[in-house]
């Protein structure tokens, strides 16, 4: 006897078990009896379109065991709005559930619905900080954060500083770099890094991060993107790249990303193709051999012949 079948509160409900339809169903799961019972009560109340407090409890129970159930979330939302429930309480429950099921997407969709309806985002960044403590790269949480910024216009409420804080903790957190790009460039109608002042600020920021961690692709990608969006010639980054990778000192390269950037800069120069080829050779043979085929392909695109193994050994 399960907990619903012995509960007088549920005595009026005839549970509705799932019908697999025949022998040898695919991907059948060894459900616990608790789950099977909960599911058959859920099916019964959904079939009856019941919106009640006990239904809210039941959906909590089911979501805890199977958060990927795609209609139970919609059903719960309808129930909440129908009963005009306190949405703050819902958020509290969601906090616990999200911390427990980190990778679930539906939880965040539901949170969107609730916070949108509340029309108030108080406390959201505090909760997000809690989530980031567990996983600072959680995709759903970063996506939700972007939604919050747009929905509540939080562009200038410390969001840029927030990305700095996250990057101070982990300068390799690409999600935080991405969020910075969004904060700077994602707002409708703002010039972003096309504004020279902002461009300089962002270049300085990324260059400082490279200084801390030269072999960190995120700030290098960021630098390139700033240059591109600001329509600044890549050659403006040449001196900086050469601090970390110079053809004059082929044994002392300390960033493969600097070397790659240098190759792109050289390729744009008049008569620079051979030199670009040298940079690509260094990547293929020594500094990034896992991508050897790609560096060879890039040489091919410059109209240069790919290196023979002998040439690579002498590189």
């Amino acid at each position, binding site marked *: 006897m399960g907990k619903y079948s012995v509960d007088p509160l549920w005595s009026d409900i005839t549970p509705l078990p799932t*019908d*697999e*339809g*025949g*022998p*040898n*169903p*695919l*991907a*059948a*799961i060894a*459900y*616990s009896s608790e789950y099977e019972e909960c599911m058959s009560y859920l*099916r*019964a109340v959904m*079939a009856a379109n019941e919106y009640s407090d006990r239904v809210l409890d039941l959906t909590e129970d089911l979501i805890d065991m*199977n958060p*990927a159930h*795609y*209609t139970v979330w*919609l059903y719960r939302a309808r129930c909440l709005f129908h009963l005009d429930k306190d949405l703050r309480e819902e958020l509290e429950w969601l906090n616990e559930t999200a911390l427990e099921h980190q990778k679930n*997407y539906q939880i965040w*969709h539901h949170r969107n619905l609730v916070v949108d309806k509340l029309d108030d985002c108080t406390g959201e960044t505090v909760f997000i900080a809690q989530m980031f403590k*567990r996983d600072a*790269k959680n*995709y759903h949480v*970063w*996506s939700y954060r*972007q939604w919050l910024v747009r929905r509540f216009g939080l562009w200038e409420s410390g969001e840029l500083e927030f990305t700095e804080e996250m*990057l101070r*903790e*982990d*300068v*390799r957190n*690409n*999600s935080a770099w*991405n969020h910075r790009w969004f904060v700077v*460039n994602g707002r409708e109608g703002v010039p972003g890094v096309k504004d020279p002042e902002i461009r300089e600020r962002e270049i300085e920021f990324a260059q400082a991060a490279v*200084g*801390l961690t030269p*072999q*960190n692709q*995120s700030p290098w*990608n960021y630098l390139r*993107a700033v240059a591109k*969006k600001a329509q600044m010639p890549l050659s403006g980054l040449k001196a900086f790249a050469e*601090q970390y*990778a110079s053809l004059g000192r082929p*044994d*002392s*390269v*300390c960033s*493969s990303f600097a070397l790659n950037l240098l190759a792109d800069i050289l390729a744009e120069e008049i008569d620079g193709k051979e030199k670009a080829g040298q940079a690509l050779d260094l990547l293929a043979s020594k*500094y*990034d051999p*896992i*991508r050897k*085929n790609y560096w060879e*392909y890039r040489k091919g695109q410059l109209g240069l012949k790919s290196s023979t193994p002998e040439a*690579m050994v002498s590189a």
Partner: protein
Amino acid sequence: MAILTNSAVRVEPRLDKARHIKYWTRCLKTYLPHHYTGNDSNRMYLAYFIVAALDLLDALDTASTGPERKDHVNWIYRCQHPDGGFRMWPGTDFGERANETNAQWDPANVPGTYFALACLLILDDDFKRVKRKQCLRWLQKMQREDGSFGETLVRGQIEGGRDPRFAYCATGIRHMLRGESAGCISLNGQLVKDFDVDGLVRCVRAAEAFDGGIADEPFHEPHAGYTFCSLGAVALLGRLNTPDDRTTSNLNAPAAPQSVLGWLVSRQTEFTDPDSSLDTEFRKTGVAPNAQHAEGEHVSSSRGDATKQPIHQDPGESVGDSIFDLLVDGAGMNGRTNKVADTCYAFWVGASLDILKCSTLSDQSAVRCYLLGKTQHDVLGGFGKFPGDLPDLYHSYLGLAALSLAGSHQVKALDAGMCLSKNARRRLPKMWEAWAVEDRTDLS
């Protein structure tokens, strides 16, 4: 100094095919353990992994009998929705208590439909019981004005995120049920409209990120899974730009195929242990570690403020002679910049490269070594997410699929775009031809 290429010294581990077959046969024939309960509503996709894996291992016919496979096919059709499309599992069907007012809680599901059709195809079903016209009409309603697709339709409202996974599944359904024709088609004498292909292409282009990868939505972080779904979708629509195209078309996607390629090859990484940090790499460069890299935890925090006090090291002093040229035993793929390798991304990245016709630009031998030497489970068969992890269905199937794309001959050839054997995909044109004849007869 002598430089050896990685592949020259690598000894490639073997696929323990017998153990993998055993793993998947167990998944097919016995109940999945209770910890799959959280995936109860994804059962059609678990079913697809099981059937597709046994097919890749060429063991579908030996793992089950003809009558059993008929039962499997019947179960898939049991999940078909009366108004077209499929459910993910029978759990939303109210059976005898189904009526008009509770129909809202029992919608067809876009990924459920894709995986059901893919499963049927692998099981060599003739699609005769598929409600083709209803399914295609429903599919058209699953697209939003902005071109994106949702997961379910509930009381006229498209539910689910703006997620290229749904778009990918939608294009797969369209491909299987319509063939290669675009625009309006006639089915049993009735016109069935196409969905908005241009709108979907625009969605993909808009989500190309500043660093070359593709995200689920504009400004979100690019991700290898979303990159695959986006490329796969436009490839199935015949709207793909590849890096080797002389000119890229504005009607196609991605807008910057070279950037996507650069981002994809950057996914290959020797960092495979989620519990170790990248400190070793920092040591190689002579720079003091600034931060922990491991997913989900930061142990050390930074010294210095990246914004105000640039600490430029002197590159001249920082580098030893032998820093970068470590010999590695394989390198898998990560899903985002600066994350560790994970079995499934060997597929998402490998398949994306394959779709762009650039699969040899990654180090495929290193991918095979990573999968076979690090994440293959040597007792249970299957693959785990990270080295030493227990196998699960998702990583075990995508591991096999990735292995096929990386050039292993121990599994059947994979069609990257549909993530099933080439063999299975080749059955489609025959069905399209049969439908064409039927549809013509209906018209006359």
